[in-house]
């Protein structure tokens, strides 16, 4: 009986460890995907084409908000401030 209980505990621990490892790798993968999405978001403004005649949008350049071409890889600077 005691032997069976020990075996169950070992198996349960193994299962928990596997689950944790799976969750961790899945979370890492999600994080990587999210990073890629953010990078693409940074790179191409979805409404870029429509904005081409107007020139673009305001982006952070060297600590200042400045106009940028709609294809710019820079992030938006809508609130008028850059870090």
């Amino acid at each position: 009986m005691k032997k069976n209980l020990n075996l169950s505990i070992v198996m349960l621990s193994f299962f928990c460890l596997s689950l944790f490892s799976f969750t961790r790798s899945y979370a890492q993968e999600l994080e990587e995907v999210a990073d890629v999405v953010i990078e693409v978001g940074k790179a191409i403004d979805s409404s870029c084409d429509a904005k081409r005649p107007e020139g673009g949008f305001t982006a952070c350049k060297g600590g200042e908000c400045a106009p940028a071409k709609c294809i710019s890889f820079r992030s938006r600077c809508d609130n008028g401030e850059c870090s």
Partner: protein
Amino acid sequence: MFVIELSKLNLFKGSLIFQTPTFVLICMLSFACSEPSVTNQKLLETSDFSLEIDTVLLEPVQSSQIGSFYLKDNAIFYVDKAYGLVEEFTVEGESNGIRKRELDGPEELQGVSELIPTKDGFIIRHDWSFYQYDSNWEFIGKSIFQSASTVSYQEMMDNPKGEYMEMYELLHYNPKTVELPDGFLAIKLDVEHPIFNAFISREYYRESRVLGRVNPFSGMMVEMLGNRPDTYERYKFIPFHVMLDFHWTKDNSIYVTYEADSMIYVYDQSWKLKETFGAAGIAMKTDYVESQDLDVAFESKYFYHSRKNEGFYKDIFVDEENELVFRTYRQGSDRQDLLDETYNPLRMQIFREGKLLGDFSVPGRFRILGKVGDRYVADGYFDEQNEKQGFYLLNLN
């Protein structure tokens, strides 16, 4: 100014005997304060010539000390960027009054990024907008910088090339726009395409154009000029030293200095190289930190290090009459507490017929704008803490 004086007077409400001398005293003090003052400093003395610099301190109507000076003929204009004001001064430092202010007039000027003197008046550039005025500051028209689409959007995104005009934007840092003899504007360009940029693309260094020729009335860029010299092959990516400065002469020679190159290049208007000359600056820190990826673009730390601590060549001015070329450079600094680029030590070189005549230290924001008589007018002295500002007059004897 007048409002302040009235409030001062209210403090001394009392007998007429007391009020009268107080009023006279305040008036005298006010006049004394508004007088421009000049300080003089000797920069260099050799057996051939001497250089002196006068600092003409001004009392603008309103000033945040965040601005620049511009020169048109004999008039000097102080542009306060925070207040959006343009005030005219004589070369002696006397104010001729405010000429233009933000949100002024039917054109609703949105701000002032740069003042561009022209043959017929002025152009104010605010971001990518050009506001045109005649010589009496009457509004003529407005245009917005644009370039025609030469290829499909997909082609531009997937397969960028240096000649694709629609990729380019106006360079934001250290801008300079000048009117050319034919009335077009020459303006510095930049490109920040996701895969064609100074951070990750070698093609950017080899192919990207550096100057645009713009029709001020339509805002349309009609031509792009130039590219960077082979010196940029020595580095992989130095995104914060890709800038340049230029001087376009009356006979259409273009003198160019690039930040990472000690040589000065002289081109004709089709960018055919006519001449090079130059000399390396003294004790410059040019061991540039090179970027490896696009993340650098989003870190201001890297940008500030490049501008405050590294050495690079900066501005150029050509005195065509006397065949003199003035070029400034920053030496770089180990100090980590510098507020901005203007504290990175600045020196100036003078060349005649390609030979270096002198190399001397100048104030941190020194930039020659032009000449009035025998003196060179330069931008500018700004002291935010003590609320002082002025322009420089360089005397070469």
